[in-house]
């Protein structure tokens, strides 16, 4: 694999503007909240203001007095309605502990925001008024907030479990080797890093509309979800409604970042109430609900140790994780630490590895997958620790990385943690990033400012990452106890008029799949992407799929489109050969046309072939009519994108304010279908990593009250807080799929948080600062400087 492979000619690799955009730009797109069905009832939930309490009484009768209110139910009222609990699909160990989790709490609330009652009304305003009227008596129970306290079982988040530990999971291929490496190490560095809880903050809050169909007892569920297919299965399981009576549609969805990769109480509740009341039912989340009742991300304490030789070459990595599950296990809550657990050796050639993870319950909002899910955490720990190692060894952060990178000739590389990395050229990405950043000049400017004692000091942070994405080979998921597969479906049809229909199982919510998938099919068919329509996110149209998360859509779903397209061409070739009275292997295909090898005047256009397939008047013996093919692609391996980011911060040493002076990202996601979209993914990813490093934290008081429940307090950065980014890329195709693609949805986020904090710590290193907790707020930076100034 090299970084010099020329992109193929054709549509792939072009910066096509997105076909999704016009309806979004004109306001014609329909998000769930925009759907209007006459006779719809509106839900408002009553949520617990206590983090842990027994429900002494829930009196919904005052709500029924409110004009417009149609019904109101407590958790106890609906207890008989559920066929199963809210699902957790990832029991990572056989002995994992799991509390009961119902859509409405009936006896006990376990976090602030846990829903205890629901009010159904003719309007949103009336529903809200009704919810305000519900009377609830709570008997407080001890509250578990702090992660380490939780691990010590001093108070219990769920008394009935007898412990706060949900599971302990270990990855220890060779403990003796790890111990030997530490025993003989020239350098040992260790770090303890807190991955603060983050609120995913998709701009569209969640929402669901359930419409009972007039005949047949069927339901159409419109949900702001990333996973319409998984949701359909899970709704059937939790409500007892037959899967054949459910149709799930994800209309325009306003971002997800993992927060809509879940099966939520409100979705189950809305379906159940639509069934009970025989009317359409709608629930639209408010932002201050979203901060509490939608999953949060991260929430880990990481202890990492590196053993290295004299020159700083890493000999072993040892990691202990403490992971915050929150109050309940949502869809993949317990699996999130595992998605990072294999990656704590980063981009480095590490011979010995040991990791253990304890996951505990707290009385806080459940955690689950948020952009990167486990991988940003892992990358942060190793990239912070490697910077520390550079300092111990006394070399530049770029140099320590060069000494440790897995070299291009080592690919495919079998990692000590048990993965096989598909391809990589890590040093090339570093070189390009340093060159784009003007690294030498930056170091000189940094030295000048230090020398001059200027108020604004520079910090330069480097981070090299790689990640495993393209979730996921189904057999690997099985080995990790995940309950589902990781394949993806695609169907490609050539319609009688020669237009092309692609049906995908992915469920985009901002990623531009319609544009990119049309490019993949058009490239192979040799036609214009404008002639390809892409259908998705409706289980009646795209019955199979495993949806969109984990940077999987292109490298699994897009590859399925490519394979299905090739299969369609194969079938068309047989028809064309029959029509042209020539052997199929004697036909060339290109530009939407079959031509006889050597006599191109004997040709047949794809549209003509499609029409023949449609009329079926004269098909080869034994060939079925219609020009259509499907693929259900199960990837043989993950893909492993990588890159290096360089962040430059400018710190006001008087106030502790951190300004971003510049940001360079060089990412390698293999072949790029549409670089415009790739760059957009990188920009957004970088910003969410910067947000974790400098701005965001879900803050709780010691009683489990969320102190950052609005966008006034939870500091999602705006344009005014950010610089423009310099992005570059290298191209190292993945050998594991026909497109040579990797994933890019999470890469930016994975690379950026450590780059920013490495820069901040670099700036503060003259004060003896070796670490700063995220987010690096002005006060934290100021305190670090003050600490350093003290003799």
């Amino acid at each position, binding site marked *: 694999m090299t970084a010099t492979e020329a992109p193929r000619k054709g549509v792939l690799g072009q910066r096509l503007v997105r076909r999704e955009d016009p309806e979004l730009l004109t306001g014609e797109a329909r998000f769930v909240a925009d759907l209007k069905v006459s006779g719809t009832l509106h839900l408002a939930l009553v949520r617990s203001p206590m983090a842990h309490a027994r429900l002494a009484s829930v009196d919904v009768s005052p709500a029924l007095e409110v004009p417009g209110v149609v019904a109101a139910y407590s958790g106890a009222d609906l207890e008989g309605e559920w066929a199963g609990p809210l699902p957790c699909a990832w029991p990572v160990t056989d002995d994992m502990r799991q509390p009961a989790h119902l859509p409405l709490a009936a006896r006990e609330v376990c976090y602030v925001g846990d829903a205890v009652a629901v009010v159904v009304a003719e309007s949103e305003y009336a529903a809200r008024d009704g919810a305000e009227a519900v009377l609830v008596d709570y008997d407080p129970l001890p509250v578990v907030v702090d992660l380490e306290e939780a691990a010590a079982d001093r108070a219990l988040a769920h008394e009935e479990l007898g412990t706060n530990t949900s599971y302990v999971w270990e990855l220890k291929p060779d403990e003796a080797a790890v111990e030997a490496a530490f025993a003989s190490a020239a350098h040992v560095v260790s770090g303890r890093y807190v991955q603060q809880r983050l609120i995913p903050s998709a701009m569209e809050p969640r929402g669901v509309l359930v419409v009972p169909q007039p005949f047949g007892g069927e339901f159409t569920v419109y949900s702001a979800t990333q996973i319409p297919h998984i949701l359909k299965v899970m709704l059937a399981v939790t409500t007892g409604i037959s899967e054949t009576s459910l149709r799930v549609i994800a209309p325009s969805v306003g971002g997800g970042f993992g927060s809509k990769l879940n099966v939520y109480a409100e979705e189950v509740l809305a379906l159940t109430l639509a069934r009970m009341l025989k009317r359409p039912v709608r629930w639209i989340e408010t932002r201050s609900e979203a901060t509490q009742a939608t999953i949060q991300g991260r929430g880990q304490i990481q202890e990492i140790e590196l053993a290295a030789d004299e020159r700083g070459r890493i000999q072993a990595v040892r990691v202990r994780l403490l992971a915050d599950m929150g109050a309940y296990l949502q869809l993949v809550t317990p699996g999130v630490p595992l998605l990072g657990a294999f990656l704590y050796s980063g981009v480095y050639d590490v011979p010995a590895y040991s990791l253990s993870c304890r996951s505990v319950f707290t009385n806080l909002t459940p955690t689950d997958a948020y952009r990167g899910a486990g991988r940003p955490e892992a990358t942060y720990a190793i990239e912070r620790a490697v910077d520390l190692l550079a300092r111990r060894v006394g070399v530049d952060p770029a140099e320590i990385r060069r000494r440790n990178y897995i070299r291009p000739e080592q690919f495919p590389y079998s990692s000590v943690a048990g993965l096989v990395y598909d391809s990589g050229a890590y040093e090339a990405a570093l070189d390009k990033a340093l060159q784009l950043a003007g690294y030498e000049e930056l170091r000189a400017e940094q030295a000048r400012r230090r020398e001059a004692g200027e108020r604004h000091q520079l910090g330069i942070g480097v981070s090299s990452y790689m990640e495993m994405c393209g979730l996921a080979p189904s057999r690997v998921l099985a080995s990790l106890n995940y309950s589902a597969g990781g394949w993806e479906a695609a169907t490609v049809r050539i319609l009688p008029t020669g237009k092309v229909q692609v049906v995908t199982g992915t469920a985009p919510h901002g990623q531009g799949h319609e544009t990119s998938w049309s490019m993949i099919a058009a490239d192979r068919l040799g036609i214009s992407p404008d002639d390809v329509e892409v259908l998705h996110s409706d289980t009646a149209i795209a019955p199979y799929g495993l949806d969109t998360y984990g940077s999987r859509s292109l490298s699994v779903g897009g590859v399925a489109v490519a394979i299905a397209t090739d299969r369609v061409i194969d079938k068309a070739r047989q028809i064309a050969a029959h029509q042209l009275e020539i052997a199929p292997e004697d036909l060339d295909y290109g530009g939407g046309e079959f031509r006889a090898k050597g006599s191109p005047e004997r040709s047949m256009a794809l549209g003509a072939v499609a029409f023949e397939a449609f009329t079926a008047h004269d098909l080869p013996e034994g060939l079925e009519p219609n020009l259509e093919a499907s693929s259900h692609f199960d990837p043989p391996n993950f893909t492993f994108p990588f890159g290096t980011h360089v962040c430059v911060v400018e710190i006001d040493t008087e106030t502790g304010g951190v300004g971003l002076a510049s940001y360079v990202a060089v990412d390698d996601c293999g072949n790029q279908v549409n670089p415009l979209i790739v760059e957009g993914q990188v920009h957004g990813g970088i910003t969410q990593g910067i947000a974790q490093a400098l*701005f965001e934290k879900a803050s709780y008081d010691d009683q489990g009250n969320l102190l950052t429940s609005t966008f006034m307090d939870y500091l999602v950065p705006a344009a005014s807080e950010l610089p423009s980014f310099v992005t570059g890329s290298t191209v190292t195709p993945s050998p594991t799929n026909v497109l040579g693609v990797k994933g890019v949805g999470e890469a930016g986020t994975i690379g950026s948080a450590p780059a920013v904090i490495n820069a901040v710590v670099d700036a503060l290193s003259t004060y003896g600062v070796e670490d700063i907790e995220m987010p690096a*707020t002005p006060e934290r930076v100021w305190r670090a400087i003050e600490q350093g100034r003290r003799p």
Partner: protein
Amino acid sequence: MIPASFDYERARSVEAAIRLLTERGEEAKLLAGGHSLLPLMRLRMATPGLLVDLGGIRELSYVRRSGDDLAIGALTRHCDLAANELARADSPLLAHVAGQIGDPQVRHRGTIGGSLAHGDPASDLPAACLALGASFLVAGSAGERRIPADEFFRGFLETALRPDEVLVEISVPRHAEAGWSFQKFTRRAQDWAIVGVAAVSDGSTRISLVNMGSTPLRATAAEEALAGGASAEEAAARAADGLEPPSDLNASPEYRRHLASVLTRRALEECAAVT
């Protein structure tokens, strides 16, 4: 979120507003741009029984000279004040501060009178008015009176306005020749100041602080130090003397004290540079 129900009246004049306030007492609230009150109402942290909308009283939106003062109608929006040529010439501090509030959308709706009457210690205009030595003309059922800014801010979200009074005009001494500075420290541009400092230097120096206590405040210790001949640095070190700044997610009291000193020093340096 959705506010609880309330009655609503559009006041066509200040007199009409005063009449409604007198009739309905404490349950009535004045609505100007709504950018202080409506957010609280949406979270149901405020549930007034009556909103008296002043928005239709166009004649309360003006900027004009009045003797040595610049007079600003209470319903003048932040964006209009920020862009007003007369304001920029006669009270560049006030015009500048108006342009720093919230974000453009907030400045298109929020009014100077609404902001001052809300009396939020974290808001920028009250501190600017303190530094400028402003005074406020208020009208009530007992007639008009003028309240100096120094006597206006009484407690947390509490002002000297009586329940039946309407703030109608803000007067600030013109300070075209004076040194001035406004230092606002935030984590995001749209946020309230973690700490802000306004200073006006015209022979003597007045310094006021944003978000350093339960009300907008003067930095009296620093002012006195300056008057006593202290350097900017020495005076700034005393900016937070005697104050009890709040603690929140963005800053501890200790950090706020530190910021107040740093920003005061910068403000004084900038004042000196302007004059």
